[in-house]
């Protein structure tokens, strides 16, 4: 089988495999990816831009989008700061339990987001292991802080992974050269290490933001899905759809889709700039 494929590839002239395989890929990917995405744009605009705009500027929709952006932003800030710190420590120092720590940090990637949200509830909820010691007004579950917490839990491994791989492949000799020239640890980090992390930091931040702004499974459990209080954009889409307000859901869906397009484009088209070290 594979031998025939190889033989065909070396035949001069017309190569059957090429058009067939490309055709199959198009036939699969078109209905799988492109058509659903296209349909939200078609549906959103078929009643005219006016109704789309009205749906988008409804106070609840604006609130949901804002909340998503703000909570994702803080999760991104946290991930960049602690991602850099964590990756620096874990790549530059050898200590007992280092590998275990790396595995633990990366673990949430493999956990279903609903399970993650549920676990946070069990820990921080009113009757949870930590939550029970917090007074009524300091409860964090069902507040925007819970959303940030869930976002971090779910997205930290993404930022950490990107940063860690850059730290581990970064030539140690740059930092060593800086040290022999007379720089302190901090000067070396600031002038030498950090500039080399530029691409990784931007990539990690964009990945975090893209993932956090669309987070649903964990958010719906820890936020309580309270309109105008803890309802993020994905939750808004879900709620409005359940209420039968498809236009309202669709308008926000378009905005989220555009967000991800933009982020994806940056990651895709600026990858040379992001890769250089």
């Amino acid at each position: 089988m594979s031998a025939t494929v190889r033989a065909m590839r070396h035949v001069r002239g017309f190569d059957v495999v090429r058009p067939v395989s490309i055709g199959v890929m198009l036939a699969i990917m078109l209905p799988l990816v492109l058509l659903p995405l296209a349909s939200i744009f078609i549906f959103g605009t078929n009643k005219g831009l006016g109704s789309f705009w009205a749906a988008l500027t409804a106070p609840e929709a604006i609130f949901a989008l804002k909340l998503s952006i703000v909570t994702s932003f803080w999760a991104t800030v946290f991930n960049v700061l602690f991602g850099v710190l964590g990756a620096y420590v874990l790549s530059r120092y050898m200590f007992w339990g280092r590998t275990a720590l790396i595995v633990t940090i990366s673990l949430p990637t493999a956990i279903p987001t609903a399970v993650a949200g549920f676990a946070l509830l069990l820990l921080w909820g009113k009757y949870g292991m930590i939550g029970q010691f917090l007074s009524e007004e300091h409860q964090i579950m069902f507040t925007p802080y819970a959303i940030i917490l869930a976002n971090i839990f779910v997205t930290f491994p993404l930022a950490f992974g990107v940063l860690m791989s850059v730290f581990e492949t970064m030539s140690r000799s740059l930092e060593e050269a800086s040290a022999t020239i007379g720089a302190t640890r901090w000067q070396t980090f600031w002038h030498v290490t950090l500039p080399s992390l530029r691409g990784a930091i931007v990539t990690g931040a964009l990945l975090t933001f893209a993932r956090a702004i669309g987070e649903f499974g964990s958010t719906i459990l820890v936020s309580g899905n309270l309109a105008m209080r803890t309802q993020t954009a994905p939750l808004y889409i879900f709620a409005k759809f359940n209420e039968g307000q498809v236009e309202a859901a669709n308008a926000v869906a378009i905005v989220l889709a555009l967000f991800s397009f933009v982020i994806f484009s940056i990651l895709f088209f600026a990858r040379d700039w992001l890769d250089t070290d």
Partner: protein
Amino acid sequence: MQSEEFTTIFGSEENGAQASERETTAAASVRGLSKSFKGTRVLEDIDFDVAEGESLVLLGSSGSGKTTILRIIAGLEEPDTGRVILHGKDVSELPARERNVGVIFQSYALFPRMTVEANIGYGLRIRGRPRKEMRREVERLIELVGLEEHHKKYPSQLSGGQQQRVAIARTLAYKPQVLLFDEPFGALDAQIRVRLRREIHALLKKVNVPAIFITHDQEEALEMGDRIAVINAGRIEQIGTPHEVYNKPETEFVATFLGAANLLLGVVSGQNISVNAILVPAAEETAHFQDGQAVKVVFRPEDVCLSRTGALPEGARRLMNGIVEEISFVGAYERLTIRLDLTGRQPAVNEPPLYNVNAGATDTKTGVPIIVTRPKAEVSALPFNPDDHVAVGLTSFRVLPNFTLASERAGKIVAARK
């Protein structure tokens, strides 16, 4: 061993007091360095000094521990035992950034996001020098290393040789006590390598900063080093001037690592060395040996002279007869393999002594092969063909103690590593 090294460093006429005075004025010294990685010894009792303005080359094969020595001097690696002394000050406990040494890494380790200027000025910048002074100094260094046209370029836009010059200028900016070069020419192709070698050699003499070079290339070592330390498996085998290590190797390793060398096993017998049945007169060479001691006779391919008649040039000592086995031309000289007859068979009646050769047929091969090189002029004056019988003499050779008990090994040839 210890005292032998000592005499090679300081010269035998100097007494201990003078030697220790020299020691305090050395630009850099290491004393008794040893280091293990995960239970494997990679350095053992390393001792040497670098004088002010001197270039010392650490020569050894890959994995012999050279880089580790450099890293210990720079403070990037901690030795298990031993001290590092720079200009009389023990810096063993200081971190890398307080040692003020300049390291030119094998990969140059230039900061990729900084321009040539910024790279060179880095040492002054982190020391908080005024902008004006920094500019002037960077300007001076850029001129010194001849990179005037590349101020604003990034390292990735420079050739290997230019990057190396930036790396050197970057270290010179903060006036290091000693420069450490880790295989500086390893990443460059052969043609520029020779040119850069000369340039850097000249530059070092100009700035008069002591330097330690690492290389595995014997030619490079002979050219760059005021002195050479030959390192084998984490130990220094010999330290001396290029002339000393090449012409007076103290160990078999040194003899074979620097250039090609032939080895014959022998035994000291009075003022001679007996190699099987042949006695080679060696009054001077055997002076330090006892009668009956097992030795190795070491000689370079160019120290062998051949003759058809048995008459050898003035000063050459007759070794034995041999058969020309193989001839090849290697550029400017001819390279022959001669199979020596070690049996020393007595001449038969009417047989001229020169043809008294019994090295066996080419398939049985009882004799010992040696490598001989001859310059072109000599080749045309006295051409040889395979199977010719020749008298073999030596213009000079070294006698080394034979510690190995591999007595069944009658002789061996180790060709140059390169």
